[in-house]
């Protein structure tokens, strides 16, 4: 079992791991960055290593960019297709919220080829999104819109025979922006557990990543197609610098938060893989090759961020502020180079800095790690099966609470502000939201991610029970504590619990959202409120037609292309 394997890997590094009281703090989770083991990168490395081939097989799109496209991937013996239906909608109908009813692109990743009845089903149901009905041949459902600011600009530039002006594009970094990737049994689609053990998508979020990669490709193809339609004689395609720069935009709301609170073993695996890698790198000696590699990544990060903007990204740092942090990291690295364990020394310097600097250093250092991707995939694939043993005694429950949830004492959970919010699912496309308890009574409609409150109340409910009493007796007396008791049993991994109360007045969803987005491989975090943000995925990544060296892993933190004038001067 992978849990046993992960536990063994952690145990072997026990004294060198960062403790959960550091890494599971909201501020640290809210500073996370993509790493070598983020899902976008592991997916592309797998594709390169196993020689997956991808191609556009259909592009029935008119001059305005309306129509149907199909992309195909052969992943070993498995053929997968991404089908997309494109249109345009009025700018006023664009929304980043998941609750929109119309989109300019709707798509699905499916098993096999979309032909015959299956093609007709997809054509009918995919544009309906959540209102549609699917079957196990459909693996991921997605949708999104064109970038209002840049799509037409990019088309016009290429149609006029020009490459885009970097100053116009700023750090937008995407052509299309998605708003959802549904999978795992929703609306009748394939369940994650339904992938056979040897299936190329039987790794968490691999199907969504593959789908997102092709969604991004569609953006490039749409722009170049519309540019050709605009002026066939003058139009050019993106040149080599621009042809990989753009990623896929994504707007992310509160839907991520319930997932993280409901799946402690999944969260643990995501954090643990990063922490294993960091522990290994910190113990490395500073060979010339390693020192050079980290130095290159620091320079690369600087080039990436220094061209960014100074937009208000609070509570996160904006690109200009991150660039300044990279300069401090560069200086610190210079002073650590001659230490016996220079990477450990750099980390120790970073942990005395702000969380954003700490986690940026973690991300840069992990570029040195070279674990077998098969092992990483296995470590990330966890069983969530758990059931409460009714024979567990109150004494054992008290011990587990002390061992796993001592941090609850830091949260002031008896204060009324600790339960100001409750989490709810809206009737519009089932979007998770939060609302105030003093404004609307939950009436049994709350999404039970009030883990901290429930465990705190369970702890209090044990008062008066003898240590030898089975927990089942307590639950017979207090059935409302069943979920807490079940959670106590399931929370058996050190990195499984975000140390926060999702119902507190002070709760900031952005922190947990950023952690998850970084785990997916997203970057360019632009908060738009306390509850949602925009990000970019696959910026700088290889394209579908890439092969050989073009498929290498050396693509993150892309540098914004230079203007035509700058290129001319450098020649």
């Amino acid at each position, binding site marked *: 079992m992978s849990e046993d394997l992960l536990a063994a890997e952690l145990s072997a590094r026990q004294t060198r791991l960062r403790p959960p009281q550091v890494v599971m703090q909201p501020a640290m989770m809210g500073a996370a960055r993509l790493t070598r083991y983020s899902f976008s990168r592991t997916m592309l490395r797998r594709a390169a290593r196993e020689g997956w081939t991808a191609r556009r097989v259909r592009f029935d799109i008119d001059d305005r960019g309306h129509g149907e496209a199909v992309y195909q991937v052969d992943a070993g013996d498995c053929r997968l297709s991404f089908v997309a239906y494109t249109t345009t909608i009025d700018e006023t109908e664009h929304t980043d919220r998941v609750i929109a009813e119309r989109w300019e692109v709707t798509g699905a990743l499916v098993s096999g080829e979309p032909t015959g009845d299956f093609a007709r089903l997809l054509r009918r149901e995919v544009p309906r999104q959540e209102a549609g009905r699917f079957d196990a041949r459909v693996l991921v459902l997605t949708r999104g819109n064109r970038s209002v600011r840049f799509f037409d600009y990019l088309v016009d530039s290429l149609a006029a025979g020009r490459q885009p002006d970097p100053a116009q594009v700023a750090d937008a970094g995407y052509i299309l922006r998605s708003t959802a990737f549904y999978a795992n049994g929703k609306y*009748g689609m394939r369940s994650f557990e339904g992938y056979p053990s040897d299936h190329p998508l039987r790794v968490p979020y691999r199907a969504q990543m593959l789908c997102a990669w092709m969604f991004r490709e569609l953006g490039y193809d749409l722009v170049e197609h519309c540019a050709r339609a605009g002026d066939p004689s003058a139009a050019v395609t993106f040149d080599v610098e621009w042809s990989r720069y753009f990623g896929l935009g994504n707007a992310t709301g509160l839907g991520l938060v319930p997932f993280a609170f409901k799946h402690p073993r999944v969260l643990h695996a995501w954090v643990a893989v990063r922490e294993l890698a960091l522990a290994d790198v910190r113990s490395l000696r500073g060979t010339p090759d390693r020192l050079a590699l980290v130095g290159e990544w620091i320079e690369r990060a600087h080039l990436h961020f220094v061209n960014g903007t100074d937009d208000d990204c609070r509570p996160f740092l904006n690109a200009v502020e991150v660039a300044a942090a990279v300069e401090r990291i560069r200086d610190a690295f210079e002073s650590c180079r001659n230490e016996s364990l220079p990477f450990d020394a750099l980390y120790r310097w970073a942990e005395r800095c702000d969380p954003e600097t700490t986690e940026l250093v973690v991300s840069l250092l992990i570029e040195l790690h070279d674990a077998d991707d098969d092992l990483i995939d296995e470590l990330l694939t966890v069983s969530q099966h758990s059931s409460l043993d009714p*024979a567990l005694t109150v004494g054992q429950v008290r011990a587990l609470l002390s061992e796993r949830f001592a941090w609850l004492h830091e949260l002031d959970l008896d204060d009324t502000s600790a339960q100001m919010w409750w989490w*709810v699912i809206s*009737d519009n496309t089932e979007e998770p939201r939060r*609302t105030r308890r003093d404004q609307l009574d939950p009436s049994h409609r709350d999404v039970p991610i009030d883990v901290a409150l429930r465990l705190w109340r369970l702890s209090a409910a044990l008062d008066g029970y003898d240590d030898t009493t089975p927990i089942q007796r307590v639950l017979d007396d207090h059935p409302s*504590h*069943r979920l807490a008791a079940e959670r106590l049993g399931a929370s058996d991994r050190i990195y499984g619990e975000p140390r926060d109360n999702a119902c507190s007045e002070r709760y900031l969803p952005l922190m947990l959202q950023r952690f998850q987005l970084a785990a997916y491989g997203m970057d360019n975090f632009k908060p738009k409120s306390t509850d949602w943000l925009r990000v970019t995925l696959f910026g700088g990544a290889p394209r579908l037609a890439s092969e050989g060296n073009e498929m290498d892993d050396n693509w993150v933190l892309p540098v914004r292309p230079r203007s035509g004038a700058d290129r001319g001067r450098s020649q």
Partner: protein
Amino acid sequence: MSTSVTVAPREIHDLVYRASSVAGCDAGMAERIAHNVTFAEIHHSGAVRAFCEALETTALPTSAWVTAPDALAAAELAARDRGTASVTFEPPVPLAAIAATLQQSLERGVASTGADADARADTTVSAIELRLIDDPAASARQAQIDHTRANAYRHGIAVEQAWFSRLEAAAADYLVAESTLDEIDSRPNVA
């Protein structure tokens, strides 16, 4: 023949959870009911129907859907102490209300008789005998459970359309109107 719809196991789980919640069950109770119904639908069929019928005829929080699993847990404790134990249900309970609970006891080394492995989930059970066994993982029943479960997750489960629609309707009250939430957010005293 009634028409069927192929659904993913999580759809049954999510809908049963929501329907149980708005019927008045606490989250832990609702979660256990959802687990039992999903397991029973996968391995026995007829669980969605049994659950919907119960929703329409009983007060769920005080029904056997809540109390029978607790009675089984208490009997399991006794079996682990003494080697055997029994529990009777009066009136008899649908297998759908206890199927996963029985399986969990088996995984902890307590086997049961009284509920036929091949029975439909809407079959009622009047008594369960429990006994300690040595190696629960080695049972032929476990291999069958693993196989059936894998198939359900790979291909989905065929459920009668009419009952699935009733389940969806029962679960719909769990959702709060978007307009209500927007209106609350727009109030001047709400941040």
